[in-house]
């Protein structure tokens, strides 16, 4: 009872032959499926952005002030790290497709290192915020503190969204390690690399999200506390 792909041909009434697509070895199907999955991510973050925009609309001034208090330098460094890691991941896929398995693996390791660096910086940031009394269930964010609603909501959403984004990074590291295992096992090869391709796509969506998260949290207040909206 094996389920290997047996190439099949369908024949019409004139006797013309047509190749039948099986579910096995369907590269484009695999890619399409993963894209569809990414659309769900877009909608998920879209909904969170909507919640954010909702409160932004109710408390424009507080949002700008709260944003101004985030550490823009660390956020910027993280942006650069993610962009470079996108390059390394892209190159690893490219090398895989070109047949350079070893180089490909090296690039995946580079991506993992960059991802860890991102998480490290994030941790530094969160710690600093914690020490300033801004953290979930802590200090200024407690219900009894006098911080205004707008700011509480801004920071609440900030921790939620960067947290969920960070969670995606962790998952990303996990599946990259898994990918390395599959490569070593010979299951992902230059001629069969849909998994590699999709994980590269995953990594891209992760920083695609960051591309919006970063300015919405870190930059809207960059024009100073009076900056426009």
């Amino acid at each position, binding site marked *: 009872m094996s389920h290997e792909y047996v190439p099949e041909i369908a024949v019409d009434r004139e006797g013309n032959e047509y190749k039948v697509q099986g579910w096995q070895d369907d590269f484009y199907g695999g890619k399409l499926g993963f894209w569809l999955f990414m659309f769900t991510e877009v909608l998920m973050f879209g909904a969170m952005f909507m919640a954010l925009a909702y409160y932004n609309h109710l408390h424009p001034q507080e949002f700008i002030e709260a944003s101004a208090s985030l550490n823009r330098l660390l956020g910027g460094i993280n942006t650069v790290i993610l962009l470079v890691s996108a390059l390394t991941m892209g190159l690893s896929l490219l090398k895989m497709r070109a047949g350079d398995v070893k180089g490909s693996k090296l690039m995946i390791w580079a991506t993992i290192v960059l991802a860890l660096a991102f998480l490290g910086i994030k941790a530094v940031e969160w710690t600093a915020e914690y020490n300033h009394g801004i953290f979930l269930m802590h200090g200024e964010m407690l219900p009894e503190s006098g911080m*205004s609603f707008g700011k509480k909501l801004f920071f609440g959403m900030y921790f939620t969204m960067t947290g969920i984004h960070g969670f995606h990074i962790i998952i990303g590291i996990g599946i990259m390690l898994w990918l390395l295992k599959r490569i070593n096992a010979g299951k992902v090869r230059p001629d069969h690399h849909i998994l590699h391709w999709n994980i590269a796509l995953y990594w891209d969506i992760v920083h695609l999200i960051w591309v919006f998260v970063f300015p919405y949290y870190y930059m809207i207040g960059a024009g100073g506390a009076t900056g426009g909206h």
Partner: protein
Amino acid sequence: MDTNIVDYKKERLVYYKVLVGLLLLTAVTFIQPHLFMEESTFMAQMLIALIKAWLIIMYYMHLKGDTLIGTMGIFSLIIVATFFIIVIGFDVANFQFGDESYITGPTSAGVESAAPTHH
């Protein structure tokens, strides 16, 4: 669909070029508040983000030339956009009796928003 045969050198060059573009745009986000659209940092930032996203999707995610997935993507984005237009543009923009409501917080209404004291 032979996705195997790649011109390694040429594609790598694309990657590098796009990265440079992205880094440049990141730099622009930092100087934007002092450079252009000072009145609307928010819009400017989102505009830059959109360009960056477009670069990533087209070149890093290889969507260029793929009409099927591209169309589906646009369809999904239109749906998200609709949510925004209706909820933010129509409902919240016409928030009823906001001035007398508790959740809008007395401080967000006026100028003295710096004062952290309320409720």
